[in-house]
Structure formats: C-alpha cells, structure tokens
C-alpha cells in the first residue's frame, strides 16, 4: 500500500485457505492469476466484457467476477474458488447439481456453484425466484438453466 504507483508488486492472497505470495504485474486479472500463476484452473473464462460469470469466485466471502478484478486488488484478501468448495466428498450442492442434471459441458459450472454457494450461505432455503436472481450473472448455453435452478432449490431444502 505505498504511495508510489508500481507496475509490479508482491501480492499476498489466501486462496482456499492457503496463503500465496507472488509477484504480479499490476495489470494481471485475478482470473489469470488464479489460472496461470496458481494453476487453479477450475475458474473459467467465457467472455471479455465481464458478462458471463464463468470466472465467479468469492472475494472476502462475496461472489465477484474475477475477470473484472485485478490480482493486485486481491492483495490481503481471501479468495475461494470452486476447488475450495469440497475436499474428498462432494458438497450437497455439488451432489444436487449432478442429481438434477444441472450441467452438460461443465464449463459454466464452477461459476454457477460459486454463485449458488454464496446464496445458500445467506439464504439457506431460497425460492425459485431468489435462485434465479442469484444466478442471473452466470451464463449457460447448454442447459437452459431450468435444471440448475431446480438443483439449487433442492440443495436449499436440505438436498430434497
């Protein structure tokens, strides 16, 4: 946090509970930092205008599009990616996605899960409308969204 602007700096970021220290160019997007510098390739890129949400991660607990955040802006922050959702076992949300055929190609799925997981943290039993609003920033071209919404609602009711 110096007063002299820098083109490169060392960032300290806690990602999925592990703290990383890396030197990055100021211009590097958080999504590229995660994918290329940290080899966490679960977060995806689907557009270049911040429209599709495939890059959604949690930044200090809230879902954001990591393509619209610079890595340097995450200095000192905590980031959760899809890799941080589960350990050995799938979470009820992930299992619900599979049960309800809420993914086909799987490319939008990490972003969808991050948005849905954030919703379920705040609203444990969301309605269909609440789920749609929560996922409005995540584009899917395979499923038409119906099964995804159903999966999140079901996960909310304790996996019903």
């Amino acid at each position: 946090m110096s007063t002299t602007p820098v083109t490169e700096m060392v960032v300290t970021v806690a990602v999925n509970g592990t703290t990383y220290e890396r030197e990055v160019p100021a211009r590097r997007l958080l999504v590229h930092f995660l994918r290329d510098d940290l080899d966490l390739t679960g977060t995806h890129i689907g557009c270049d205008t911040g429209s599709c949400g495939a890059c959604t991660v949690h930044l200090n607990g809230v879902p954001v599009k990591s393509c619209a955040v610079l890595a340097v802006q995450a200095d000192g922050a905590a980031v959760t990616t899809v890799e941080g959702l589960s350990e050995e076992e799938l979470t009820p949300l992930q299992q619900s996605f599979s049960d309800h055929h809420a993914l086909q190609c799987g490319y939008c799925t990490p972003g969808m899960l991050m948005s849905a997981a954030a919703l379920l943290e705040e609203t444990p039993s969301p309605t269909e409308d609440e789920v749609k609003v929560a996922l409005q920033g995540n584009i899917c071209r395979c499923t038409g969204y119906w099964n995804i919404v159903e999966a999140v609602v079901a996960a909310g009711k304790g996996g019903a």
Partner: protein
Amino acid sequence: MLLREVSYARPASVEEAVTLLSEHDGARALAGGQTLVNVMKQRAASPDVLVDLAGLDELRSISVSGTTLEIGAMATLASIIRSSEVEVSRPILAEVAATVADVQVRNRGTLGGNICVNDPTNHFPPLLVALGASMTIRNAGGERTVSAEEFFVGVFETAVGEGDLLTRIDVPAGGKGVGDGMAGVTLGAHGTYVSNAAATVVDGGWRIALGCVAAVPHRASAVEEKLSGADVDEATVRAAVDGLGATLDPPSDVHASADYRRSLAETSTVRAVMQAAEKARG
C-alpha cells in the same frame, strides 16, 4: 482481452488519493472496476495510473443527516440494497440498484462509479437528476458541491476532472407527498437499458429525467410544467407526454432506431410518472 501496462497504488486516505490523482497525469480512480477494468481490457481506455479507492472506508458510509441521505461514492450497489437508511429515506435507490446487471456486479460496482462513467444507458444518472441529488467533489484545492445536472457534462464526461475525486452523493430524503418512479425497456431481464425515464414528484412539483436519448440525462421540462400541480391520471399524463419524442434526437443502433427510442421515451416517461404519482399518494 488484456490490459496495457499500468501502475497501481492503493492509498490509505482520501488526501493521499487526491494527491495521487493530481500528481500523476493520466491517473484514474479505480472504484468497483466493473466498468473500468472491462474498458481497460478492451484497451478502449488505458490510464497510466490506477488509484485504488478500496482502502477508503470513509467513502463507503451511508447515513442520514437531517433531511439528506448521504451516500459515500464507494458504497457498493449491494450495500445500497441492504441499507436500512436507504430503505427508510429514499427506497427507489435500492429498488433500482437491485436491477443493475447481477449479484457479482452489484457486490463490486459502486454508486460513484456508475455515475462517473456517465454511460447514457446507466441506471443512476437519470435517477439522480430526477431526485435532485448533489455530488461532492474533492481535489487538492478543496471541496465543492455540484447539482446532478451540473455533474453530467458530456459524452462519458462528468464534472470530475483531472485530479478530482467524487466523495459523496447527497439525495434529499423522501417523505409525505414524495413519490419516485423509474421505468424503461432493457435488453433482457436486468439487462442494459434501451430506454429509461426517472420521475420524482414532491408536493405536486415534478422532476423528470430521461436516459438513453442523449449524452447526459435529459430533463423533460415541458412535461414537468404541464404536470405541475395537476391531478395526475393516466389521460392527463399521456396528454402531457405527447410530443415529447419529437423533441428528442436519440441515437440509432442495432437495438433500437431513433424513432423507436422516441416512442419508448414517451412510454417510459408515462410509466415512471404514473409510478411516482402512485407512490406519492401513499
């Protein structure tokens, strides 16, 4: 797309931020980044220095002072939606914020950022003009306050110039006899506006601002005059709005022709006014 090389600083105080903005040519304030980072990805704009305002907590506050709702320029749209001060004082701000893009954008995007971009399709420029908001701008020389009309200057241009930092937006508190409305047409649900209008009535006096038709929000003064003090029913409103489209010179693009925008401008205005009138009735 990928950014050009840029320098980055994260000041710890507003003074430091203002110093950085004035000392470095081509420095831009980085608020939520939802517009700026995407614009820089396209290389449509490439400031040399980014001054990250993330550390300036004082710019995030939302409070009521007397009859004024004071919103820090760095208040995110999410915080505006959650704010009980906004809900009590001027709820239209939260209602409109909830329709901007999506959760991820609202978690980062700020009210200050939204208006500093002055994109003609943005939600808040016409709304703040209708509400009669004012903006506080600080620079190395001190602080000044401008009205919303004075704030929106030209094509993607505001009163925030080189070395300036927008710190606060003040909105008059609502109350009895006050009604707000905003209506329009978007490209898909919660999408980009193709046409919008914001209307506010305070004790029978109207402020109506149109977005999407010009570089800056357009005050529909003739309509305001016709409605002033009048009994507001749909027929009266339609009569007052009739002809508004012909006075406008909106752009034509892939989403709407100029004629379509003229027609939508009238419809959006009628609907915003009807909403405001209903709210004012309580």
